[in-house]
Structure formats: C-alpha cells, structure tokens
C-alpha cells in the first residue's frame, strides 16, 4: 500500500502529543450515575447543551483544517493521496474528541467505548474513500462543492457525540426509551418524522446525521426509564 508519510511536516497535534505527557486538572468532574459533568466548585451539573457547544467549536476548527486541505487540493498544491491522509487524521481527531466529550472525558472511556468510536470513524473512512474515488473519476468536481462536502466530515462529529451518549444511556444508565428532540435550526422532513414518533425503544430511532440534513443535523435525543414513581427522564440538553 502506498501511504504518503507526513512525518516531515507533522501537525501541531502530533508535535504536542509526542512532546508532552501533561495531565491537566479540570474544574469539572463526571458523575457516572447521572451521566453528567459537574462543576466541582458548585456541585452543579453542566448542561449537555454547553458540552455540545464546546464540541461545535472544536468541530469548526477541525472543519477549517479540512477546508484548508481541500483548498490545497483544489489549488493543486497537494495530491489526492496526501489530502486523503490529512482528512483521515482530522476525522479521527474530531470524532475521538466527540466520543470523549459525550462519555465524561478521557478517563471514563473504556476499551469498549473506544471500539464503538472506531466503528463510527470506520463509517466516515468509508464515505471518504468514496469521496476520493469520485474526485479521481471526475464525478466530484474540484470546486466549491468539494469544499462543502469536505466540511460535512467535521460536522459529523455531532453524530458521534450523540451515538456515544446513546450507548452510555442504554448500557450504563439503563435507559429504555429515546425521543428525538429537534434542534434550533431548520428541520428536514426526515427529522420531523422521527421526532413525531415520540418515545421509542432505545436504539430504534434513526441516528443523528442519517436524515436528509445529514451531518448538518442539530437534533439530540432524550432518554427515559421506568422508576418506582414513574418515568425518569435523562435530559438531553
């Protein structure tokens, strides 16, 4: 297999990763039974909407990298294979961070969680392989449409966040049902139809990012399980 080396020009992440083993102290903790981040100074839960917003900022930064890479490809500054390697690196970075943010941080990620994350990354790699083949065949024009399509890969990190959270709610928190909550954006027909289904057995609704709005989807899930006094709802926000 020909796999271009990027060792001569490693990214800032590679330099930082190889050059340090810094352990930072967070002002936040993770409450495993609640499945929520906690402000250590106040004991208050951090809203998941805040965590999602932080991930969106990181995903945007990743999207900017992907945009730069794709623009370099359009400008004939790098080869298709080099672009593919760079895109794969960014996909893995953004989805790895998305998974950890959904699961309560790096320390809470188990081998099984990493396995689940790898499967989500694998799906993105499949899409990227098709993208690269379509560029090579000329089916995908190398213009603004390619830039738009490349950016969808960064946005897909939101879907990984929701899938890893869904996995936690099912396996660790015993949640039985899920409901799609529409995001603060225009909604595609698929998302509207999914939301209209209301609560359904967990794992049966279509994943975030699977409808017509693809990775631009800003929907989330909320979950519930039966308790001694009725339904216990895990806030998605």
């Amino acid at each position, binding site marked *: 297999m020909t796999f271009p080396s990027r060792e001569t020009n490693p990214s800032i*992440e590679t330099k*930082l*990763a190889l050059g340090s083993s810094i352990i930072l102290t967070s002002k936040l*903790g993770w409450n495993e039974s609640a499945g929520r981040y906690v402000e250590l100074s106040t004991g208050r839960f951090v809203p998941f909407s805040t*965590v999602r917003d932080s991930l969106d900022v*990181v995903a945007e930064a990743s999207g900017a990298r992907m945009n730069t890479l794709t623009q370099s490809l359009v400008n004939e*500054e790098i080869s298709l294979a080099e672009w593919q390697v760079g895109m794969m690196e960014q996909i*893995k970075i953004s989805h790895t961070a998305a998974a950890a*943010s959904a699961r309560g941080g790096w320390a809470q990620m188990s081998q099984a969680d990493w396995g689940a994350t790898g499967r989500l990354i694998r799906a993105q790699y499949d899409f990227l392989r098709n993208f690269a083949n379509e560029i090579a065949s000329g089916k995908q024009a190398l213009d603004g449409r390619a830039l738009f399509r490349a950016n969808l890969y960064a946005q897909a990190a939101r879907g990984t966040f929701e899938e890893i959270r869904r996995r936690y709610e099912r396996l660790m928190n015993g949640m039985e049902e899920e409901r799609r909550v529409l995001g603060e954006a225009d909604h595609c027909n698929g998302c509207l139809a999914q939301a209209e289904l209301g609560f359904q057995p967990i794992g049966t609704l279509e994943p975030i990012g699977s409808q017509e709005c693809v990775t631009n989807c800003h929907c989330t899930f909320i979950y519930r399980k039966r308790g001694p006094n009725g339904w216990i709802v895990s806030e998605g926000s």
Partner: protein
Amino acid sequence: MADPIKKRVPLGTPLQLTDEQLDQLSEVTPIDIAKAQAFWRVNAPAEFKTLLDAQTIEEE
C-alpha cells in the same frame, strides 16, 4: 532567485484502501488520543479546555 511560480502537484490516484485496511486504520490508538487531547486543548472555548480531563467524582 527562487521561481515564484509554484509547481503544480498532479492529482494522482487515491489511496487504494481495502476494507481490512480501513478497519485497521479506524482503530483509536494512544497516539490518536493524544492528538485529539491536544486539538481539544488548543481549540475548545477557554472555560472548557480541561473539560475532557474530568475525573469521576464520588457521590455523597
């Protein structure tokens, strides 16, 4: 003096990755985690740069 006109890089062929190779490449390794940690710290909003360094707290 250097040539101001940049040499154009040929598009070339895409990486010919098999399903098995994609399976292997999609596995998350310690170096991948370190890269993602660094990327988060550099790019996350200031108040949440250490969010993912959270540790599990004991419930009272």
